[in-house]
């Protein structure tokens, strides 16, 4: 079964303190070339849910209707996702590390009357705009944004 990936970012006009904080610290973590950083969340849902059901989960549970936009898989890009070419970092808990959020996510889906997924997990996404090198981004991802002991991280170069 292909997993659904639901990505969530703040709408324009709403603050992103996690991104702002990382940008403020960028020089000290060896990322002085960063010009803009946005932090968001990503959820991966595997199971017998229809696209419409995943859409409902995104709209009513995972994203805040006032402050956030969501994007499922490679859907059309909502305004919150528009950004100049950027590095993309994803941080996930490794398989086998218990995710304390999973139970709430399952409850949230149940309360909406949706079928139970085979698995649902949450991760973090960072988008970094600026003149950076791959090793720098990888180092930040592994040293400052995650702990390789329990997290896996992936880095995607600007497209």
């Amino acid at each position: 079964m292909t997993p659904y990936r639901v990505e969530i970012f703040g709408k324009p006009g709403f603050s992103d303190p996690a991104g702002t904080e990382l940008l403020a610290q960028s020089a000290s973590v060896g990322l002085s070339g960063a010009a803009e950083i946005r932090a968001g969340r990503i959820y991966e849902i595997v199971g017998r849910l229809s696209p419409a059901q995943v859409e409902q989960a995104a709209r009513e549970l995972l994203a805040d209707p006032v402050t956030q936009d969501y994007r499922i898989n490679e859907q059309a890009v909502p305004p919150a996702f528009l950004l100049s070419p950027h590095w993309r970092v994803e941080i996930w808990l490794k398989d086998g590390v218990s995710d304390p959020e999973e139970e709430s996510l399952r409850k949230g889906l149940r309360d909406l009357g949706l079928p139970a997924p085979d698995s649902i997990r949450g991760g973090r996404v960072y988008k970094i705009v600026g003149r950076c090198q791959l090793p720098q981004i990888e180092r930040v991802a592994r040293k400052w944004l995650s702990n390789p002991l329990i997290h896996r991280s992936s880095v995607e170069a600007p497209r």
Partner: protein
Amino acid sequence: MKLPKALILRCAGTNCERETANAFAMAGARPELAHINELKSGRVKLLEADIFVIPGGFSYGDDVAAGRLLANELKRFVVDLRQFIRSGRPVLGVCNGFQVLVKAGFLPNNRQELQSASFTFNDSNRFEARWTHLRINTHSNCLFTKGLPEMIELPVAHAEGKFVVKTPKVLEELKRSNSIVLRYVNETGEPAGYPYNPNGSVFNIAAISNPEGNCLGLMPHPERFITRYHHPNWTRQTFHKEGVGLEMLRNAVRHVS
């Protein structure tokens, strides 16, 4: 005389229910803690209560977003809660309870309970626990703040307390209907930046109510200021006779006595 019943809602992660119950008992009510499962099963009936309280805490861990899961769950009781509010009985949402009332669409007030405001992370990107100076909107109809001095102090403790609105119109409507009850200010009563406004809320909003003033949501914790010994400076002051938080709850109890 039968004391008015204050129904205090709990669920997994609620954590201010005991002190809230103690505070309501001090204020002259009969507090009753009810688990959300008891409301669902019908063992406890919302409409039999005189006051309804959603206390502070981390409902379901604030997973996904603060108050989101409990807000969705509360929508099952939308008819009862709508009727409860329209009957004029006091409804109080403190901290997480405020987040729940907003995300369930009960505040800011509108007919269809559509969410028109929200909370995001504090500008500092951190949990902030501190005492704040608050200015009461004297034109507000809020029954909880009647007769209180215009300037009060209460503690806040939250990570996702930045109140934001969907559109500027929502804020205008809140102002127009005098629904903004408390604003974060400095010692002299003027709006000021961080840390006076601990989270970056729009228009320094700390509390809003419905225009009728019986449904109040606030980020500060009235139940944490029920004796003068709660104030951080009680060892150097003599002017606090008792906690202003207790006065707020007494107003609610008086309203239904």
